């Protein structure tokens, strides 16, 4: 197996007395889809927030392409090419897709004003690439369907050359057809060499899509294995029994 792009070693995070994540190890390889599974409260979201700079680690280390890095803020993570798509997508429903894509990272003209033309061009390119049928670039995203909103959130993460894409429960809120679209999109992104983490509490959401699967319980690593060595029943056992 190839050298991991990103490695978490012995990562720990406690909130007050709660050990949300404890001496957790995780390696991500470029171009893989990595399923992260566990019950509600297992520590998945916390682990991903450590990775995206929302929380800071108490102990352990994070290595990117072999070098130790520090993630103090979401900005730091973005700078390292780590992008997070939150379960609630974190979109501003009153703004259109273009505005949401570039929120906080707006392209500016020489005068410091919004460069709507440039942003619109880039958005057309990117969204057209993800879904050629999407034309509602200037509609408030609150009026888009669940799948379209998901796509806007994904596009936002891809805007600035993401190398690692974390998706928290990506298909949980979607209908079957849309969830299939998003799945196909995830596969295509992985083929481009992006490492993708799919976080879920539901085995069926991620099993078929993943190249490797990691199971967590009580903040700790239970197991990591290629999907080919697993079957759903075995994963379920790992999730429930923790061994």
């Amino acid at each position, binding site marked *: 197996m190839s050298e991991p792009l990103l490695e978490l070693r012995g990562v720990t995070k406690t909130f007050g007395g709660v050990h949300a994540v404890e001496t957790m190890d995780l390696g991500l390889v470029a171009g893989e889809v990595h399923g992260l599974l566990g019950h509600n409260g297992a520590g998945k979201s916390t682990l991903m927030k450590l990775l995206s700079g*929302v929380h800071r680690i108490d102990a352990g280390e994070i290595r990117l392409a072999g070098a130790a890095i520090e993630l103090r803020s*979401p*900005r730091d993570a*973005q700078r390292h090419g780590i992008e997070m798509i*939150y379960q*609630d997508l*974190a*979109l*501003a*429903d*009153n*703004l259109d897709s273009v*505005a*949401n894509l570039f*929120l*906080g*990272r*707006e392209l*500016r003209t020489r005068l*410091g*004003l*919004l460069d*709507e*033309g440039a942003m*619109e*061009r880039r958005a*057309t390119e990117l969204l057209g690439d993800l879904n050629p049928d999407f*034309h509602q*670039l*200037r509609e408030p995203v*609150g*009026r888009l*369907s*669940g799948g379209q909103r998901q796509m806007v959130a994904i596009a*936002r993460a891809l805007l600035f050359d993401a190398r690692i894409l974390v998706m928290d429960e990506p298909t949980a809120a979607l209908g079957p057809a849309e969830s299939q679209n998003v799945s196909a999109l995830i596969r295509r992104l992985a083929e481009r060499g992006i490492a993708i983490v799919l976080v879920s509490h539901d085995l069926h959401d991620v099993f078929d899509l993943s190249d490797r699967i990691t199971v967590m319980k009580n903040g700790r690593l239970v197991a990591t294995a290629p999907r080919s060595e697993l079957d759903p029943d075995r994963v379920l056992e790992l999730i429930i029994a923790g061994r």
Partner: protein
Amino acid sequence: MGRWLRESELDPRLIGTLLALFSIWLVLDRVTGGLFLTPRNLYNLAVQSSVVGVMACGMVLVIVARHIDLSVGSLLGLTGMLLAAMQADVLPAAAWAWPLSIAVGVAVGAGLGALQGVWVAYAGLPAFVVTLAGLLIYRGCAYLLTDGRTISPLDPTFERLGGGIDGAIGPEASWVLGLAAVAVFVTRQLRVRMDRARHGIPARAVWSEALQMGLGVMGVLGFVAVINLHTLPQSDEARGIPIPVVVLAVVAVGMHALARTTPFGRHVFAMGGSQRAAVRAGVNVARTTVGLFAVMGALAGVAGALTVARLGAGTSSMGTLSELAVIAATVIGGTRLAGGVGSIAGAVLGAVLMQSLENGMVLLGVSSAVRQVGIGLVLLLAVWLDAVWQRRAGGLAEEGA
């Protein structure tokens, strides 16, 4: 109807305010026996609307960001007293005292506004409480500044800002200004259309674009034509656009640009749509909040200057209760109290609408107590309509999802 509006991309709130305004004008003209829609009364109406209009332009952004500013009336009073005192007491002889005093008034307004923003953004206190404290503190300070004494005389050049005698720009300049505004408006609209075509984004329906353009052009030119019918007493010399209305126009255009073409404005709207989304996208919400209240304070300073110029004196009670008129105008103009949605154009229309009611009822000889009841009811109606509209729009969105 909803679908038709959506395709047209006309702002339904703006259309609603416009229709309401025209209906009110027709009714008022009828019941006052034709006293309302006269050049003279429209001139007065325009002057009266400018103070509330200037502040409503800022209140839009404050409310869009899910905050509120109750201090603007008191801040108007304080900055007005300050700038009057500078002209009358501190630098009574200097010719440059009045521009300096305006600059100081606006700067103090911005500074005190920013201070409130700091309490909201960094101490995490609700804007309602912080600016309520501001309302009390600034009003008290306005009184303390001169122990409640009225301040005059002011520089006569400065008093032109109030729109009284000599307070207009003359008929020729009015036409020039009107035509320039129309030219800029039309070119901009066409540019947006061409840009869209170039990027393959579906264009707006021609009829809706033409309608919007026609309304804008007719509104501006019609205003100039009517205003130019109003003459000075005992002469047929037209006065032209009142200077406070020019100030309002400049403020409105500037605030529209701030809201729609700068990252700051974009972030304000994002905060109103979803504070979490803004934070997670890396928007500096605290700094944006401070900037927001600073802009609002600066506009209260501008309104203070207009008020003092119109009264020809500074009094410590200036602007009392005007925060409510400003908030009402903003909401009537289509700004959603829940945040995220609002427009500068709507707020200006809202200010004109509020002032039309006030003005019309004065023409009818209605007592000030009854006027308050009337305006309160209209505000209630506007917010109720907004809530109904919102519920319907929400229902539609759910269907679509």
